[in-house]
């Protein structure tokens, strides 16, 4: 597999985004570290998707800065950055007329990984991913015939196939059954161990809590709270109460429940 650069951290400082007269983000500062899982919580319309789009480089902030390893994102080589980026959105971003195998083959070639992309290394990797997301039996069927859950599994494989160092997951558990939820949680843990930076937008507190090192709460475009947890210790209950406590403290408060805080947001 061709080497891609690793990011140590990605941070934002005083990020603002306006859509006309409507303010989607208002002074968001955060820091995401390699080998950490961060959950991004917030009500509908809080600005989560806008923040994700800015972190992915698909949207320019009105004001403020995104830094990758202490370098402004605007100065980072665009192609290298996208090579390290894995984004899972609400849409699977797969071609309906192609099979899951063909879709993954295409993405292997797009990301230029497992060179030569048509070689056995690529085929083995694709089969490994099809097994990992339990799509072996449906690997040859057109994507348009797959169920919502199967589509989500394919989208997960497409997102992680090239071993990105910045992984942005928007509601990744949508449509997954119990086995799928367990599979995704295991993959998130593996990606964390590999040293990826993971940001998960979710409303599924109970599932995500044990996987998190850090929880960010976005409220009306502002970062309401940043809560740190020892990895594996969080539960839905603790997360919810911490979330409420943080919400009562007002914007930009921070609570540290961790014995050894893994990150230090600005």
């Amino acid at each position, binding site marked *: 597999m061709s080497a891609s650069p690793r990011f140590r951290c990605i941070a934002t400082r005083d990020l603002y985004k306006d859509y006309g007269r409507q303010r989607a983000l208002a002074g968001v500062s955060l820091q995401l570290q390699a080998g950490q899982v961060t959950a991004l919580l917030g009500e509908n319309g809080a600005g989560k998707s806008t923040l994700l*789009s800015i972190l*992915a480089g*698909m*949207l*320019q902030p009105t004001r403020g800065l995104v830094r990758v390893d202490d370098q402004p994102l605007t100065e980072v080589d665009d*192609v*290298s950055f*996208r*090579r390290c*980026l894995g*984004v899972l*959105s*609400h*849409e*699977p*971003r*797969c*071609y*309906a*007329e*192609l099979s899951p195998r063909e879709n993954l083959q*295409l*993405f292997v*070639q*797009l*990301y*230029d990984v497992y060179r030569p992309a048509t070689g056995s290394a690529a085929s083995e990797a694709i089969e490994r991913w099809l097994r990992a997301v339990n799509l072996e039996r449906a690997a040859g069927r*057109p994507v348009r015939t797959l169920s919502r859950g199967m589509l989500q599994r394919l989208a997960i494989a*497409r997102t992680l196939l090239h071993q990105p160092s910045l992984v942005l997951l928007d509601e990744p558990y949508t449509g997954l059954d119990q086995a799928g939820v367990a599979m995704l949680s295991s993959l998130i843990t593996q990606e964390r161990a590999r040293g990826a930076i993971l940001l998960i937008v979710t409303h599924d507190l109970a599932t995500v809590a044990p996987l998190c090192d850090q929880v960010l709460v976005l409220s009306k475009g502002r970062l309401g709270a940043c809560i740190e947890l020892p990895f594996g210790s969080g539960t839905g209950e603790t997360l919810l109460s911490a979330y409420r406590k943080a919400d009562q403290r007002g914007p930009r408060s921070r609570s540290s429940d961790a014995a050894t805080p893994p990150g230090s947001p600005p």
Partner: protein
Amino acid sequence: MSPARFVGQVWLLLRKDVRVELRAGELIYATMLFAAIIVLLFSFAFLGGAPPTVEVMAGVLWVALALAGLVGISRSFEREREADTLRGLLLSPLSRSAVYLSKLLSMALLMSLVVVVVVPGLLLLFGMQLSGAGALGHLLGLLALGILGFTAIASLFSASLGRARGRELLLPLLVYPLSVPVLLAGARGTYDILYGTQESLIDAARWLRFLLAFDVLSITCGLWLFEPLSTNE
């Protein structure tokens, strides 16, 4: 990026587009059928009157191309939007110019299918005649350059409209005025070719050169503008 790598990326995406279109079929059949209907409608409009002149035939050819072509291009991008696959490509490490160029070429291939329907339709229903292989060569050259110029503009705006409200309405409003030079040069050049004299073929060659210059300009602008227009949501 090396030119070979760039060409490789364009080829990869073009192959993907062709494979997807061939399997879906929907776009190919719908566009060809729409083109056939336009030619039929025009033939009914001139039924019973004097035989259509070469000016009319040239006009019908390019109007049919522009109408059916934009329907196909618009639908193709709409499908990319529904599955959000275009965003997937823009987030990948591919050169955005390669994304634009591959879209342009796949849409040009789709529009070539319109030619396959419209030209025989004009031969059959309008009695269009070509005076020899030279005239046919000129016409094919004119069509190829005209299609490239049209798709260069249409692909750019189809991608850049993103999820804008009313984009189905906005697209023709943006594309048709900007493609007036293509339609004008195409229709005038076709008229000269169909007229069939030595002098008129020389005039047609001038329109060919005009279209070539327009294509270079529009594709260059497209390559330059595609990234800023398509990435900022």
